[in-house]
């Protein structure tokens, strides 16, 4: 019952995000210029712009236009791209797969690595090895991801010739972007894991388990880790949005045919319908992933179940 209510709230949030992003894009285009110019091909003359205005109903009152925009968003009808002539929605969803192929493995790898390293550092917080690991994570956390990408290209593609520098087909082209995103995610996450675990190791249930004389392994995995886990899972949702942000730039840098490259190309070609659809898809994706993470946290953490949402 509670969970159902929770999910209803989250669904409402998703609708708010859809509505909010659409509204934002709508008013942004109206406030900063003539949408008829924006929604016409870049080289269009005045009569083409006028035709666009009539065709898209931009000569109608603002409120009618706004309603039409909402309807087209919720029916996923974004028109055709000026650049490719393709259906915008089809071309955006086509790029979604390749982008997720990068983000999801990176997120999982980062979580796995951060879990191991963070736990090790938490258990060895006083000695040199634990400190060294966290120092390394701190510096790694500061390295700009695009610099990591460029250095990896330099070393592994240009100097050693092991990997293709940009583009390329097959799974080998995934190595550099996944490595970059994993490094970026893992640095923050391992610091966080260490902090959470150190915190939970000093909490009541863990002290209780220790004083009962349970073996260290049982104390750690049965008592300390479950206490530390929920905020970390919730953070994975935030990290997901972080990685998507990086991916938008990374894909163009590494010439990888995903959502980010599509968005940047669309901006360069002033292909506004595609820009709109891309931003909307990104927003929905991030919201859905965060809802999933929040739901997992809720299912895992019995303390949250007793409270009414």
């Amino acid at each position, binding site marked *: 019952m509670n969970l159902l209510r929770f999910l209803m709230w989250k669904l409402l949030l998703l609708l*708010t995000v859809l509505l909010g992003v659409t509204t934002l894009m709508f008013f942004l285009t109206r406030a900063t210029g003539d949408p008829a110019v924006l929604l016409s091909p870049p080289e269009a003359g005045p009569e083409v712009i006028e035709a666009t205005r009539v065709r898209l109903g931009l000569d109608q009152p603002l409120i009618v236009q706004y309603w039409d925009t909402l309807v087209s968003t919720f029916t996923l009808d974004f028109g055709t791209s000026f650049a490719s002539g393709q259906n915008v929605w089809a071309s955006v969803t086509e790029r979604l797969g390749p982008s997720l192929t990068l983000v999801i493995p990176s997120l999982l790898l980062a979580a796995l690595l951060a879990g191991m390293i963070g736990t090790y550092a938490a258990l060895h917080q006083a000695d040199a090895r634990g400190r060294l690991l966290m120092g390394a994570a701190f510096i790694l956390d*500061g390295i700009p991801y695009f*610099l990591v990408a*460029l250095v990896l290209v*330099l070393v592994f593609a240009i100097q050693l010739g092991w990997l293709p520098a940009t583009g390329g087909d097959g799974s080998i082209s995934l190595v550099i972007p996944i490595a970059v995103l994993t490094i970026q995610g893992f640095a923050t996450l391992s610091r966080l894991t260490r902090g959470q675990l150190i915190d939970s190791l000093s909490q009541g249930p863990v002290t209780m388990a220790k004083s009962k004389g349970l073996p260290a392994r049982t104390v750690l995995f049965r008592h300390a880790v479950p206490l530390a886990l929920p905020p970390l899972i919730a953070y994975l949702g935030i990290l997901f949005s972080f990685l998507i942000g990086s991916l938008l730039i990374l894909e163009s*840098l590494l010439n990888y045919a995903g959502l980010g490259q599509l968005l940047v190309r669309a901006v360069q070609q002033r292909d506004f319908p595609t820009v709109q659809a891309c*931003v909307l898809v*990104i*927003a929905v994706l*991030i919201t859905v992933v965060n809802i999933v993470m929040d739901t997992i946290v809720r299912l895992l953490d019995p303390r949250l179940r007793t409270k009414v949402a």
Partner: protein
Amino acid sequence: MSSENPAAPTGATAGMPATTTQPDPWGPASDQARVVKTPGRMREILGKAWHNPGGRFGFLLLALLVLAAVLAPWISPADPTKQVLSDTDTAPMWLGGEGGYLLGTDSLGRDVLSRVLYGLRLSLFVGIVAATLSAMLGLLLGILAGWYESTLGKLLMRLADIQFAVPFVAVGIALTAVLGPGLTPVLVILSVWGWTTYARTIANSVSQVKRSDFVTAARTLGASTPRIMLRHITPSVLAPVVVLWSTSAGVLILAESGLSLLGLGVQAPDFSLGSMLSDGQVALRLSWWAVVAPGTALLLIVLAFNMIGDALRDAFNPSSALEPRNPELV
């Protein structure tokens, strides 16, 4: 608040709000506000952060970088825009490059060291200005959201939820589709998009502070709502703003660099560290130093801000070391 207030008479009870330790408790409200000028809490936090080794290193590193940026016209070995076409892609002198270039030259024969020094200016400028503007916006909206908790507060927090779903970079890229590429749109979007982290934190503090005794006292003495917000609430929620400011500056500088890297940010002839990366990555094969040098400068900036931010956060609230740095600024 267990901080020592230097203005308090000796023997004042620890934990008492600073406003109650007035020499003349019966004076008019305006006099009282004037007496409490000591930024006790803030100075304490800055002091603690300075005494933290990481924090001190961060402060010194940042001071060095700012100094290098300010002094760029005097310490640069060459004109950063001058192209010496006979010296293109020259390796740094310590790698055996000719011509005595400390960090080599790029593919147009420009001195990389001079460009890094000048590039620092714009990068630091963007980060500091955008962080300050978003802090001010966040402070304002956060105080309003915390004060009018059930109406405006709820609305603003829903707005923050929506904004959270759209990463910085996505809005930045989308906005350049409308406004065209350039420094101004990037600066605007970075300043506007950053308010949410501040507002959320501040709204929480304000909703607690507004119920405290000194606010009731000010109200009883006839202070108006804007006056209470400005003179009583703002000083008490300022510390987290400073912490967030320093952690967000690094993130914002990276965001600008990312957009400039795609050619959507700073436009030539101006350049930032990010647009240097953009120029350099084309000729990565021939002159890797033209990418690694500005990249390292960016790394140093981010490290300095992160170190300061972590030290300030630890000083401000020792138990908050567990919280992620800037979850919403992505």
